[in-house]
């Protein structure tokens, strides 16, 4: 499991490869916060290569979303498979996040 970060135009795109769980969520948090400190404002997390996410992974997404908003930025999510969609629906977090079906749509939506 790992996170790869790259910049596409003005947007920081993070791919979550494997699980996003209690064992590695801090790594994701730190990577995104580092970019936020450098002044980045627009973030997209792409879950096309993600396995499962646990409650602490969801917690990190909520926390990042708040911190980014506080800096006047935006966090969007893309490419949730059916299982992950269900996870966001069960927790109603689908109402808190802007979720796009594809990476392209997410990038366009900023």
């Amino acid at each position, binding site marked *: 499991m790992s996170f790869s970060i790259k910049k596409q135009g003005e947007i920081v795109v993070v791919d979550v490869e494997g699980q996003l769980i209690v*064992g590695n969520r801090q790594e994701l948090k730190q990577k995104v916060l580092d970019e936020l400190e450098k002044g980045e404002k627009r973030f997209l997390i792409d879950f096309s290569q993600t396995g499962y996410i646990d409650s602490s992974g969801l917690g990190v997404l909520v926390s990042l979303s708040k911190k980014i908003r506080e800096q006047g930025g935006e966090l969007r999510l893309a490419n949730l498979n059916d299982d992950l969609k269900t996870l966001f629906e069960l927790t109603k977090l689908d109402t808190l996040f802007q979720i796009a079906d594809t990476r392209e749509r997410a990038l366009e939506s900023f």
Partner: protein
Amino acid sequence: MTDGSDDGSLPLDSMRLALDLEIPSDVRYIEQVVELVTRQCAQLSFTARHCAFNVPVALSEALANAILRGNGEDREKHVRIHASLDYMRLVMEVADEGEGFDLDDCTIDPTTDENLERVDGRGLFLMRKLMDSVERFNDRGNVVRLTLRRA
């Protein structure tokens, strides 16, 4: 018992698998325990959704709670996992060395307006949504038992 199918595929309804495991209180073990258990579920032809979603998420939550809440991440303390599965159901028991806790008292509804932006508190909620039952398995309350019926 059915007679299996003609190609020699196994009669699943007479099959039973069990697994016992003990790990130190370190969250890095969670992923591999989950993989081990889901592989057993796949062996018994549990659905793809059960194998890729319900079991991994619910078990991760139970393990994380046992490691972090029950054992306070003290590596000297251990978490025991017992899983048994057959054609009807998967039963997982996760035991820590903590004081125990009250499942009902500790479960919140993270979907209310005031809770939606909370960073924590979704673990027990998810376990209950993804399993058919989540119970305290002993009086002390340091063993949680999760049951999932095979779809």
